[in-house]
């Protein structure tokens, strides 16, 4: 198939349907019910219809279900809920579980074994809110736990070093890292599923409760319940199901040491760098070609370093560009990161920060968001750009960067 800009790209798969739940506290629903709700939503969203028996396999992503809900064997639960007895797999890759499940599903479709698969990500965190800070540290090296670190603490160490190396005492660096939260809250205001649909100001962030200095409460994504699901099929079959499939043209994953502390850099994520690099290479694109990106902003510093790891901004310079982009924004809807006259809209639905972060659901929710945006079905928070909206990137991180899964989606590949 011809790719944009005249290059040849063979998609991995095509997305033909997507569903999700609202994110936030959902104490009245079991985790499998959330996943079922998202999954059925995805099935029913397929334009030309999809029967349950058309699904040949399921790929689920979740992180903490064994701890939060004392359940295992997700396939067994879902076989009961869906009423089908097909192959099902569960992928655990901490906060990157959803992205990893989607990655595995893409490989499955590309391998030719299956025609149609369902990918679902879910997490039920509030059922164990009193212990969730401890549980999240499963995704860190035990020595980091024993050092007293929390996840916010680990990202705070990343943020502190970033400020030390690149902020160099400039107050604007701190403000830029707060502006990321403000931007993502702004993007979520019109997202009906988002956990936080309210504006916040830079000063709100900088004066919010300290959690792990320099990280404050409003630098952090929340504890959430939720699920998201998408339906994948072979690219050549996609038009049977919908006139507007979204193609997965890049699908890459990279890994690194589980411990932030012992990795080569505290101010960048090697796995992201590798996965983005490979995804851009296989699609023959550059970051400047992309229009929207769903980025793993579990803490605002992560969005900043993504902009550098991906090569969109120069190493150590992202904060300056974030600051300038935010300060110069005159519109009312989505705040783009400006570069060379163009712009990249990051986290158009609010990202993890404002949409919510039920960790295993996030990677699939990112795909959901881009699917909706590229099909111009995002409703009130639909991104508007000059020309066609055609290319999106999803970056899903596990832990503090032990795994990164990157997908590039395209609406038009003809």
């Amino acid at each position, binding site marked *: 198939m011809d790719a944009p800009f005249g290059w040849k790209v063979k998609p991995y798969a095509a997305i033909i349907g997507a569903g999700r739940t609202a994110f936030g506290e959902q104490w009245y629903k079991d985790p499998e019910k959330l996943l079922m709700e998202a999954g059925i939503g995805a099935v029913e969203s397929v334009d030309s219809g999809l029967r349950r028996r058309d699904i040949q396999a399921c790929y689920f992503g979740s992180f903490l279900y064994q701890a939060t809900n004392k359940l295992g064997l997700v396939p067994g639960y879902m076989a009961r809920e869906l009423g089908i007895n097909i192959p099902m797999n569960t992928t655990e890759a901490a906060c990157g579980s959803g992205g990893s499940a989607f990655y595995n599903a893409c490989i499955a479709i590309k391998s030719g074994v299956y025609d149609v698969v369902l990918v679902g990500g879910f997490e039920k965190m509030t059922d164990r809110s*009193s*212990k969730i*800070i*401890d549980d999240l*540290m499963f995704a860190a*090296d*035990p*020595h*980091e*736990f*024993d*050092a*007293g*670190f*929390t996840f*916010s*603490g*680990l990202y*705070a*160490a*990343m943020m*502190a*070093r970033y*400020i*030390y190396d690149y*902020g160099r005492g400039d107050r604007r660096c701190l403000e830029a890292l707060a502006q990321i939260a403000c931007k993502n809250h702004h993007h979520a205001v019109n997202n009906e599923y988002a956990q936080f649909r309210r504006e916040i100001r830079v000063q709100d962030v900088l004066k919010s*409760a*300290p*959690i*792990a*200095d*320099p*990280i404050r409460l409003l630098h952090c994504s929340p504890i959430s319940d939720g699920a998201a699901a998408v339906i994948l099929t072979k690219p050549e079959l996609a038009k049977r199901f919908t006139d507007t499939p979204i193609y997965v043209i890049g699908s890459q994953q990279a890994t690194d040491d589980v*411990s*932030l*502390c*012992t990795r080569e850099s*505290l101010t960048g994520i090697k796995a992201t760098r590798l996965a983005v690099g490979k995804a851009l290479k296989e699609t023959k694109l550059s970051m400047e070609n992309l229009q929207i990106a769903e980025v793993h902003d579990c803490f605002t510093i992560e969005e900043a370093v993504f902009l550098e790891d991906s090569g969109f901004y120069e190493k150590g310079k992202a904060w300056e560009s974030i600051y300038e982009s935010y300060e110069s924004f005159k519109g009312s809807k989505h705040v783009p990161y400006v570069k060379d006259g163009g712009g990249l809209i990051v986290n158009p639905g609010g990202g993890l920060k404002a949409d919510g972060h039920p960790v295993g659901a996030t990677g699939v929710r990112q795909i959901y968001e881009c699917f909706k945006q590229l099909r111009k079905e995002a409703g009130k928070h639909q991104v508007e750009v000059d020309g066609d909206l055609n290319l999106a990137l999803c970056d899903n991180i596990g832990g503090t960067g032990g795994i990164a899964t990157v997908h590039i989606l395209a609406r038009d590949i003809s």
Partner: protein
Amino acid sequence: MSEPITRRRILVDYRIRASRCVNCGRTYFPPKFFCNTEGRSSRMNYVDYFNSRGTLISGSAIRKPTNKFLHLGSFISGVVSFDDGNVRVPGRITDYTLPDGELDITRLIGRGVVPRFRRLYTDGSQGLIYYSSLNFSFDDDYYPYQEYVKVEPSNTSERPGIVGYGVYLPKFRIKNEEESGLGMKERTVPFADEDTTTFAVEAGKRALIHSGVDGKHVKKCFLGSESTPYAVKPSMSTVCQALQLGEEYEDGFFSGGIDSQFACKAATDLFIDAAALVAYSTFGGEYVMVIGSDNAQAARNDPLDFTVGAGAAAFLFGRRDVIATLDYYVPYTSDTPDFYRREGQKYPRHGGRFTGEPAYFKHVVTAMKAALRVSGLAPKDIRFVVNHSPNAKYPYQAALEAGFEKEQVEPGLVVKYIGNLYSGSSPTALAAVLDLAEPGDCIMMTSYGSGAGSESYIFTVTKEIENKRERSIPVKQQIENLHREYVDYNTYRSWKELS
């Protein structure tokens, strides 16, 4: 954690063990068995950073800790590099209370840090207690960095004695607001992650550094205490594992020892045994370490609650490069019930008929006088006299009663500034006078343990003491350390209860 997980973690965490590629020098923490660079041609060795100085390269002030660390409140967790960044480890900053308001962590980046053996958390009140050396204090703060240089001994003494010592006093203090007549001005307070075992490791570490002795030549370790964290499980084995005492073999050590208990003389009682062992050919070892360590316990508002301190002193006995020969020993014991604690009880009972007289004074003075008689020495022949110090009054009175002068007693009365260290009391006082002693000086040390017994030792200081002087951290220096911090009564109680 299960016992097997704990055992595996001990091997890494107590010494900050990493693995290093012999070919390229790349170092891995936690240890890996092959080098990423060298692949199948890797040859890996273990290295450790227990005695190293690191650098804080980033961190965070944890305000909302995990449940396991709630007992510590807010604290700094950081990333520490060793070997110019060749290896990095996570670690918690200890002995550090966060200032009010936001902490600018970037101001701490680049500061030198020293590994500290500390308690992490426990599995409830009945489970295991977890320790690690991945805790750090700033090297320009209370606890200075000391290099551990192993020194080949040059002289062998016919008579065994002390070859090195180390005292560890916690950074935190509480002032006694009212003078009780016992002469106690201030007392040492354990930080929330310290206990008797951690004190013992720190004191032992300092004794090794002071003596220059290679730990592998230490064949026995006695740890005297009445506040060991486990009712059944030796603290001595933790000390042995952390300090690597004895020849290593399959992650264990060819060394022995016990935790001993005899109220406040649990450690000093074994000085003679240590000296005897190193002079006994069948023992086959060169050195014995004796540690007196206590987080002295007292019930809230009990009279003891205004005298107890915390800390440890460790002494290495041997026959090579001896700094003070052990010349005379006189023990004296009777079954006198003056101070006791039943199994399962948290605090000791005391203050009955026998406290003071005849318990303390009868045993101490009898042993002192007997030691003078046995040695043929007169009080004027002794330069320093140190006695077990439940307060600053008793040891002074006992010394006067035995015929000594104020000047001989005063240098050892460190109890005024550190409190009663129970098993660490007379050993710390002995260390304080060794800090001042000159070759040829005689020192009499008399300990006392409730229940009851005393023993008097007479030591003679040798020239070797001058060669090791610069490797010690004198007790007075620790007492007067400008970085010491005072805490209020409630903080003192809460930290003490955690230990």
